[in-house]
């Protein structure tokens, strides 16, 4: 019986923690000075899902299947030194909890970008990107039930698209 209670308690705790990473960080940092914050709620995503077709002329990749399967979206961009270090520390702490898997890491001219996902081989339920530059730290997080293959395919397409349209020589 004690085991049952322990399992119940752990399940409830882990479910609560999983759902709150992005929102907790957003609530903590979004009102601080020197912070740009964007939040898109599940209700707004339901409205986006009802839009028949959306096309933007500057985009050749159609992200709509992925965007319509999202349920929450958070962006934080912080320039204040003390807050950006705290945000980076909080994100690193959150992603080290074990459920996050490092998708990729890129380092370029002092900028470090890490992307993490939560989910299984077929589905991504949460995505986190932390970008640390000398002057700012950006955090992007979204939740949903996204097809992993589709997400990776579209990201790769968009990356290739940017590679051909904006060649970068560093």
């Amino acid at each position, binding site marked *: 019986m004690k085991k049952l209670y322990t399992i119940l308690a752990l399940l409830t705790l882990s479910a609560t923690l999983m759902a709150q990473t992005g929102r907790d960080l957003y609530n903590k940092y979004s009102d601080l000075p020197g912070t740009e914050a964007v939040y898109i709620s599940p209700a707004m995503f339901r*409205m986006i899902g009802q839009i028949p077709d959306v096309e933007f002329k500057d985009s050749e990749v159609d992200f709509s299947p992925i965007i319509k399967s999202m349920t929450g979206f958070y962006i934080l961009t912080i320039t204040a030194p003390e807050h950006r270090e705290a945000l980076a520390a909080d994100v690193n702490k959150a992603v080290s909890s074990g459920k996050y898997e490092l998708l990729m890491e890129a380092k370029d001219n002092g900028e470090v970008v890490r992307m993490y996902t939560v989910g299984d081989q077929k589905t991504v339920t949460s995505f986190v990107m932390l970008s640390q530059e000398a002057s700012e730290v950006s955090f992007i997080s979204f939740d949903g039930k996204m097809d992993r293959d589709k997400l990776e395919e579209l990201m790769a397409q968009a990356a290739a698209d940017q590679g051909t349209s904006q060649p970068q020589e560093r």
Partner: protein
Amino acid sequence: MKSIHEIQNLSAEDLRRIGEDTSIPVPEDLNVRLPQRRIYPWGIAAAVIIGLVGWGLLSRPQQPKDTFDDPLLAYAAVEQALHKMSGTIQTAAGQVEKTELVMDKVNYWK
């Protein structure tokens, strides 16, 4: 036999002395059964679940306010962020290509 009132008026010293006095016999017909506590496992389980649910509800963070009122603007913001992430992937891919070129040169001169 002392009355309840008399017992209540006894000092702590008197109570200790009476308790330590082994010459006072215990009545043979004294048969007091202390009430036993019953443990209800399902009651405890229900209390634990109610406690966890209550804690979960109370500790839920405040729902933030939507940045956009217009779903098209929200869509555009998400798409822009996805393109930014794709740009990062492109940068990383470029680094991999550069590394491969360097490795090819190194292997050529070996």
